[in-house]
């Protein structure tokens, strides 16, 4: 009988977290993204320790200064993203437009620099005698292009969404009570930024 009472005992209604669904969804999705990059980075570490002699010294092949600038650009874009969200919360339409546009452009700029870096490497890169540094250039080339390439792909997706959000901004979609989209997009953007900082460290600097 004690059992019975325990089982039937009434409880106050519960309605999940106090966070709106899209945000939860994005957090969940990002967990999966973490595992994806963890897979790539993990393999990178294993392969590099397995054959460290086939790795170039930092700066030997890759142009660290240029990429450092690029990293800075991406970090700036994170800042502007934050400002865009703040503007939305403050219902500052001009701010929303300005900062979303800025973030989009910075993201695009990052991609531009990366594209330039790739072409330079493929055409003029020098690595272990092979003329031109390609994904086929040993484990070093393979891991470099795969990891930075997939990050670039994520940035690209982000830029597409940002462009969409910017257009919406000019249509006046965002505002005081309509900033979920921007916040969720922001989460993704900051994640991509974070991943880049890790990649920049282990691929370029170490």
């Amino acid at each position, binding site marked *: *009988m004690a059992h*019975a009472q325990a*089982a*039937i*005992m*009434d*409880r*106050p*209604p*519960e*309605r*999940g*977290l106090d*966070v*709106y*669904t*899209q945000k*939860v*969804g*994005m957090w*969940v*999705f990002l*967990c*999966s*993204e973490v*595992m*994806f*990059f*963890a*897979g*790539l980075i*993990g*393999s990178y570490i*294993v*392969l590099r320790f*397995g*054959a460290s002699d*086939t790795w170039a010294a930092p700066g030997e092949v890759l142009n660290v200064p240029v990429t450092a600038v690029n990293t800075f650009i991406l970090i700036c874009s994170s800042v502007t993203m934050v400002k865009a969200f703040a503007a939305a919360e403050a219902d500052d339409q001009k701010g929303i437009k300005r900062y979303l546009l800025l973030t989009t452009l910075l993201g695009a700029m990052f991609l531009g620099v990366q594209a330039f870096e790739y072409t330079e490497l493929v055409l003029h890169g020098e690595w272990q005698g092979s003329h031109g540094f*390609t*994904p*086929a250039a*040993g*484990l070093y*080339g*393979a*891991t470099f*292009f*795969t990891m930075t390439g*997939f990050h670039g792909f994520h940035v690209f*997706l*982000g830029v*597409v*969404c940002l462009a*969409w*959000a910017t257009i919406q901004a000019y249509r006046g979609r965002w505002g005081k009570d309509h900033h979920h*989209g921007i916040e*969720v*997009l922001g989460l*993704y953007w900051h994640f991509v930024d974070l991943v880049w900082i890790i990649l920049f460290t282990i691929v370029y600097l170490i």
Partner: protein
Amino acid sequence: MATIVAEATGQAILHEEHGQSFLRKYIFSTDHKVIAIQFLFTTLFFLMIGGLLAMLMRYQIAWPDRTLPGGGILPETMVSSGYILPEFYNSLVTMHGSIMVFFAIMPMLVGVYANYLIPLQIGARDMAFPRLNMISFWLMVPAGLMTLASFFVIGGAAAAGWTLYAPLSGRPDLSGVHLGQQLWLMSLVVLGLSSILGSVNYITTVINMRAPGMTWFRMPLTVWALFITAILALLAMPVLSAAGIMLLFDQTIGTSFFLPEAGGQPLLWQHLFWFFGHPEVYILILPAMGFTSEIIAAGSRKPIFGYKAMVWAIVAIAFLGFIVWGHHMFQSGMNPTLGLSFTISTLLIAVPSAIKTFNWMGTMWRGNLQLHTPMLFAIGFVAMFAIGGLSGIFMASTPVDIYIHDTYFIVAHIHYVLFGGSLFALFGAIYYWYPKMFGRMMNETLGKVHFWLTLVFFNLVFFPMHGLGMVGMMRRIYDATGYQHLQGIEDTNQLITWAAFGLYASGFLFAFNFFWSLWKGRKAEANPWSATTLEWQTPSPPKHGNWKEIPVVYHGPHEFSHPDVTDKDWLAQNERPDVTSPAHTGPAPQPE
């Protein structure tokens, strides 16, 4: 990404959803129930294909020196002058495994039932992201088409086993397979995306869209299982995608992640694959355990024995599932010391499985067993899964694994878990939730015949394989007759093949019952099994939006035979104990 952003809340979609074109309603529908049914038909199709491949394999193993009847219709690259070619046999092995795992069992467990049951059992109107849900189905379709197409490209379909061990899978010149392997990998990446999007949806829905009063420990075990499964898929699939992409690059753009010639590491592939692969095994069994718990509780008219223990067992299995992958690699050249630690974690994971088995039996104990088809399949699951679990102990013990690794003992084990386990539970689930899905009952007599045939043939097929494993018959061999230690097993192999044909045939009995009942089946009332969970407290099939108004939950999921409830032997989750309706059929479905 854009989808999530563009996604309004479930409700918003619902209201704009009423009365649309056939196309939006049945093809590009965002209603979780319709999507679940789309998944159901697709996966049943793949189940049939996968089975067909198995039949071809079995024929070759049983009669290696006979020509394949009707083999003439197959292209020269598969069957030459009447004989199945070794390279085609390898493709059969590979594609049977891949299709069954990735396109039949997994999407049937998750795509169909996570989709159908989660919103209904937690009292939500739909998934958190209905449009994302639709996309994850429409991503699976091209993936499936790529897989089927790969049979007909130059070089044939992937032939390195479903585990795709590099370098064989990465070197067309060594495997003879070019495009087929690449298609396999591409379809895998697409499928991975599909199931990741699905998981995001399921997890978010469970976290945020439970009905009032549906606390975590009032959720039906099915929801628990599917929730944990979604987490496993969410964390395991991306690793496989990453690995698959690297392997694809090895083949196409000249990288060498897994090719030793340029410093790559073949074992890295195995680690990545099994880091995914073992959670995958639990992705394939946990939902089945959930269905079984549900059906056994309802079928025994008893609350599930040790509900919390069941929940924690699921959680424990999921967690341990991520640290046991190495037990697939004891003989792979991995450091033997690692092997030891993986033995321990592997033996540990057997404990929660044991707990669940005992709890199911505890639920049946002193019950009032309703032995209808779903219940039979659920009990069959417990019985077969027990065998699968026990035979797993042999492999967990590393020294024994030295001998039985890569023999038919493994084949027997995996089929007792995936067929005797997952598929039995799935049959049970189909029979059990069919009335809710289609508003009609499946034929009970045919169902029972199907169960007994399946049970008998299944054991005739897979139990002898333990014996073949002991004799030392290696997996994936096209013709065993050449080996002196494999003399005298022809009879066993032929017996297995005949039984396999029977098993496949009984599948068609099921298919007939399934489709016949769609039109001719007895009309089903809202709650044909007198079950307690929420999906049964709304009409069959539920209208778009599931509920007139969102139900309020007062207690746990399996309140059967409660002493305070006198007029019937069950109490729905949205019923207060004092408010019980007169009719034994349960509360009248909400008016529509």
